[in-house]
């Protein structure tokens, strides 16, 4: 039976799963839409992998993304890492001398500056999601264009129009105005790509020392129009890795390998977790004015995790239960 490392990135828009071998080659990857049901999608993804490549042994598990703690509870992760570190590690694996990582995901975008293989600076978008994948998703829907065709259409443009990119609402009114003036769709689409890049560089990239080699990753890296706009704006070559859409998961897998190497064993709960039915329930605790939204995960009427409370009352109660059971 083959030995693999499992890397999982549970993001706002996509849940990504990869299996890596000892040489950190990607054996199989899954890019699935989270659709607000991370647990089910995660289980489905693992089941698909099992069906496609047969039985395998998991030597280590790493999780990342905004749902990393949830995934870790279900899988029994060896390491739970934030997206910045995971993305940086994955980029270093493909381009060892990388100096800048541009990453644009569904709800957040980041820039990571590296020096001699070490993260020296980074920034993430602040309160609003302008300059991220969901901005493009929204605009594509408004234009009636499939997001997958967005990039190809952008490249056809000869004369992009200028669109305000600071805010999705401004962009919409600007876009409609340009449509009314009679500009064609390609020019508007490339205009949107340039608006997003301008927003990214002025907001997240503000004051950052952007030097080549530059790696562009995250779901939005699939969009040729954005890549083209970055290339133009930064006036350098932009490298998009083959597995750009699952780089976070690859990073988590690599980190898991390192962790297991030093720890000697894995916490993985076994591939059978795909067959367990998990129930997730949220409730508002009314014991104090904080009214925390507590999430509870159960399987077979047994509570396996609770979190979301500020005071730790619910989180702690599950730990003591565990001790009693053991």
């Amino acid at each position, binding site marked *: 039976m083959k030995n693999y490392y499992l890397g999982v990135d549970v993001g706002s828009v996509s849940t990504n799963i990869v299996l890596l071998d000892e*040489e*950190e080659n990607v054996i199989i990857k899954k890019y699935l839409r989270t659709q607000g049901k991370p647990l089910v999608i995660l289980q489905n993804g693992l089941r698909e992998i099992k069906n496609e490549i047969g039985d395998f042994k998991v030597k280590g598990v790493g999780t990342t993304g*905004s749902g990393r703690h949830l995934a870790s509870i279900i899988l029994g992760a060896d390491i739970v*890492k*934030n*997206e*910045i*570190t995971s993305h940086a*590690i994955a980029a*270093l*694996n493909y381009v*060892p001398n990388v100096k800048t990582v541009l990453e644009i995901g569904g709800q*957040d975008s980041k820039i990571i500056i590296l020096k*001699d*293989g*070490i*993260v*020296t*600076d*980074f*920034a*993430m978008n*602040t*309160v609003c999601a302008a300059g991220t994948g969901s901005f493009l998703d929204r605009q594509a829907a408004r234009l009636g264009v499939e997001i997958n065709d967005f990039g190809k259409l952008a490249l056809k443009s000869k004369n992009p129009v200028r669109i305000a990119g600071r805010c999705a609402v401004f962009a919409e009114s600007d876009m409609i105005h340009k449509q009314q003036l009679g500009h064609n769709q390609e020019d508007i689409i490339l205009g949107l790509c340039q608006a997003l890049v301008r927003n990214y560089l002025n907001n997240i990239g503000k*004051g950052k020392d952007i030097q080549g080699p530059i790696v562009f990753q995250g779901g939005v890296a699939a969009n040729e129009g954005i890549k083209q706009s970055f290339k133009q704006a930064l006036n350098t070559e932009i490298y998009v890795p083959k597995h750009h859409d699952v780089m976070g998961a690859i990073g988590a897998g*690599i980190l898991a*390998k*390192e962790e297991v190497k030093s720890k000697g064993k894995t916490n993985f709960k076994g591939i059978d977790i795909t067959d367990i039915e998990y129930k997730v329930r949220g409730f508002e605790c009314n014991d*104090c*004015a*904080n*009214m*925390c*939204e507590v999430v509870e995960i159960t399987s077979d009427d047994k509570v396996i995790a609770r979190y979301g409370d*500020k005071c730790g009352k619910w989180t702690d109660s599950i730990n003591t239960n565990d001790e009693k059971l053991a």
Partner: protein
Amino acid sequence: MTYKVGIPQGLLFYDYYPLWKEFLNELGTEVILSKKTNKTILDQGVSNCVDEACLPVKVFHGHVCDLKDKVDYLFIPKFVSIYKKEFICPKFLGLPEMVKNTIEDLPPIIDIEINLRKSNLNLLKAVIKTGQYFTSNLSKIAMAYNKALKHYERYLDLINQGIVPIEAVKMYNLSLKRNKSFNQNNLNIMILGHSYNLYDEHISMNLIKKLQSQDINVLTPEMIDTDQINQHSSRLPKRMFWSFGRKIIGSAFSAIEEKSIHGIIYVSSFGCGIDSILIDLVERKARENSIPFTLLTLDEHTGEAGVNTRVEAFIDMIRWRGKDESNISTHG
């Protein structure tokens, strides 16, 4: 009859609470505090405040709502200036008016103006006017204020020793001697921002405790010596006429130049006008001195994932930078 005076736990609370409380107690009143910021207070604040205000001002309105039916007076002084030739944020200047005009059925508000822009004598006037709400005996007022000042000095002392105001406010009138020295092996992280954002555990999502639980020494502007602050802030090409700005810039520059910190986390509430300038000044200075800097922008969000990820990544980065490259086998 003992009057009940309500003090909202917001805005300048962590800057002056011991002084206000002891002064009001000495005058023979009972001080009632609003609850710590929680979701209900936040919700009430947001729905009882003008939309354009920043989060801490909204939260303050929530605290007023929490208190208004429990007290005879509300203590909301009108802060115009607390330092010669300086101002504080315009939202403080209009705070009593803002509260009066948006929240109904309020008890009388003690809204004495505190304006030291031209002369410190105005402070004395403000003290007397406040005291006159409860007594006409001037020497009683003076004595009460002097006693309160002693307590307040002890509070400031504790903070100078590196005790976070959240803790210091609980222990300033205990006669405990606590010399809290920083653990030399820990990372030193400076948290910058306005006191009402940093020390409100709900607004800041418990950032200080989160860091301390990861073996990190937390340094805040309040812990830096005032002389140091003034000395460093005076080096700006143009005088910083915002009191908050002087404190944040001065404390940040002093810590950066002494190389006593490993990183800076700036906590800012969305839409803060003063911060928009301060953040940039601090970030440039930090960059010049190769000190990692990150910004957390806070608003009404209650999901902590975003803040946690940024803080975790920031600490990871600092620890990673601290190690030799040979220690990390990132290339497999």
